[in-house]
């Protein structure tokens, strides 16, 4: 139900809107109407992604107040923010858990969109912009990992940079750009910090704007079954926004409790001379790590570039590879089997990596 001028002016918020001259904005936000089936429990992932991204932005902004991007002080500044500030552990925890959960929810979002054929016309560009967004998030993680200047972040970055360096033609240039020199030192930390807090958020906002633009003008995917397109509809404001705010509060409180009871650990300070440290890959990168481990020597480019790049290309090009109008997964057998094989392969590689790094080492 749209908010009318009369309703606006009846309460304090209405007065505020009038004072700020936002009547037109509110009216525009009230116009879009969304089917109620689009806000059912199994279609929450898009809204949850946005909740997590906002939490990441807010918690990251607070952490930035106390962060010092210099190798000699970066660790201490994170240590101070984490353990000496009131609610420091909660803020750091929300940031940490949010990106982990974001990866899962984005994965679910992608899987659901794939299964229901949401990439089919006319929503091809919604899909493509979403796939690109999915790639941006790991870039945040990679650049953010180095910032605490702890052993894990430092040596994980060294490993990643060596992988990037092995990419033919552009590897050296990319590492020189990221590192700013031959060593992972103060210039690298400054660049990673700038990428993490300025460049990537800007890029993310741009891509989110594009993603929402296409959602707005191409619409959400229709239900797979049944033709009841005339089901009940609610306006974006206040219907959707209020629900999103409730979700935001619930997730914030839940992550706050989790952060309090499972404090995010801060590893030992980075020691660039301690080559005995072997970083363990994080859960989300286990399958990529296994690919690198499998393809060695002259074949390493397979594990570092060709297979991951091919998967990304396949995902992005999906709307153009599967051009039939059919959305029912039961009638898209070939596509579903290919996807299942890829998913099975990724899961298998991840399990292998988990066993290799977390079980067989006996250190956990």
């Amino acid at each position, binding site marked *: 139900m749209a908010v009318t001028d009369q309703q606006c002016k009846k309460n304090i918020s209405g007065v505020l809107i009038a004072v700020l001259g936002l009547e037109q904005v509110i009216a525009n936000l009230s116009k879009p109407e969304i089917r109620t089936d689009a806000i059912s429990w199994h279609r929450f992932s898009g809204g949850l992604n946005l909740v997590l991204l906002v939490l990441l932005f807010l918690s990251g902004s607070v952490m930035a107040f106390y962060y010092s991007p210099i190798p000699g002080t970066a*660790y*201490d500044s994170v*240590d101070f923010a984490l*353990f000496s500030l009131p609610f420091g*552990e909660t803020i750091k925890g929300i940031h*940490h*858990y949010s990106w*982990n959960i974001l990866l*899962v929810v984005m994965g679910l979002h992608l899987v659901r969109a794939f299964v229901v054929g949401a990439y089919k016309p006319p929503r091809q560009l919604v899909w493509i912009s979403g796939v690109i967004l999915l790639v941006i998030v790991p870039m945040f993680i990679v650049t953010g990992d180095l910032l605490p200047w*702890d*052993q*894990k972040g430092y040596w994980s970055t060294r490993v990643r940079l060596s992988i990037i360096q092995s990419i033919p033609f552009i590897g050296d240039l990319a590492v020189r750009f990221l590192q700013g020199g031959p060593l992972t030192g103060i210039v690298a930390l400054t660049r990673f910090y700038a990428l993490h807090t300025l460049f990537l958020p800007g890029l993310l906002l741009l891509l989110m704007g594009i993603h929402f633009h296409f959602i707005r003008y191409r619409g959400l995917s229709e239900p797979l079954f049944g033709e009841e397109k005339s089901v009940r509809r609610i306006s974006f404001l206040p219907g959707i926004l209020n629900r999103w705010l409730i979700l935001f509060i619930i997730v914030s409180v839940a992550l706050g409790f*989790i952060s309090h009871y*499972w*404090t*995010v*650990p*801060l*590893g*030992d*300070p980075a*020691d660039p*001379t*301690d080559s*005995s*440290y*072997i970083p*363990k890959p994080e*859960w989300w990168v286990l399958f990529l790590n296994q690919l690198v481990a499998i393809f060695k020597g002259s074949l390493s480019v397979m594990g570092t570039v060709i297979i991951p790049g091919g998967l990304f290309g396949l995902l992005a090009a999906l709307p153009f590879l599967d051009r039939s109008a059919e959305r029912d997964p039961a009638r898209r057998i070939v596509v579903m089997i290919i996807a299942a094989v890829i998913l099975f392969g990724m899961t298998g590689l991840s399990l292998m990596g988990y066993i290799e790094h*977390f079980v067989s080492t006996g*250190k*956990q």
Partner: protein
Amino acid sequence: MAQRIIISLGILLMVVFIRLMNPDQLSADGDVLIIDAMHSAEAPKGLDDEIWRQLRPIQVPVEGRGELSRAGEYVNTRAVYTDDSIYFYLQWKDPTRSITKQSWQFDGNRWFHMSGNEDRIALLFEITRIDKFASRGCAATCHSPADLSKEQWRLATSRASEKGDLWHWTAARSDPYKYADDGWLTVAGNPSGSYRKTGRRNDAGSGGDINNQTEDGLRPLYIQDPGRKPSATGFLLQEDAVKIQDYSMFKPGDVIPFRLPVKPDGSRFDVKAESRYHNGHWNVLLHRKLNTGHEDDVIFNPKKRYSFAMAVFDDSGDDHSKATKALLLIFRH
């Protein structure tokens, strides 16, 4: 029903996922040995408390150089913390109980220092971060490379901003008062005292010991006050001592301690101790408030991890065996 199963599975997956997201809580970085501090609702009642039998000790390997380069020796280490304090139970093999610490002995004509020193154990924590301490342990503070003569070794940090918290239990000097001398570590160059070339400093307050000798350094100055019962059997404490008035009363073979422990007080007396030498082993319990409120002490926050180092001294003044691995204290909830 199906919805309940999905919700239950979801909660289970969430817990597993949280553990997966925090692998560092379970493991150490690199070649580091973890000492788990287990939480206890009640404070351990000394060395014989049941809780020490329930905990599996972590064997901290220690090795020295020269005469002390005996591989295969270790300090059995257990740690417990309460809401208020932290406790370390340290046990190590030592064939002899050494508390002589250069005591005076009279041979009928003159006084001389007996051979023999004392047994000791020291722990070092970071008050502020010490560069590379987490990965190298006390090697980051003990400048004792193999190509440097022993006289040139220094216990110190590299920068004034780096501060360590040093707990020093000594069998002859601190044990009589049941404490470990609490000091701190900074850059070398202490302008006064016997440690003037190291970075060791005493915490605020009194403690330590004084030399029991006359101005010419040829004989003892103090003896146990005959009118007082010794506060610590077998030791001569400064507070129990009186000046010797008549040296003719001594017989050949008489022994008088050379180092007189001074009654500790203030921040220097923060680390309390209990000890027992039994069956060729030292058993030492050290405990301290998690937060003493003193700026010359490390503040223990059970949510943090703490790198630390350990050194054992066997009847020695300087030579010691140090932990061969960097140590990491993790508080388990």
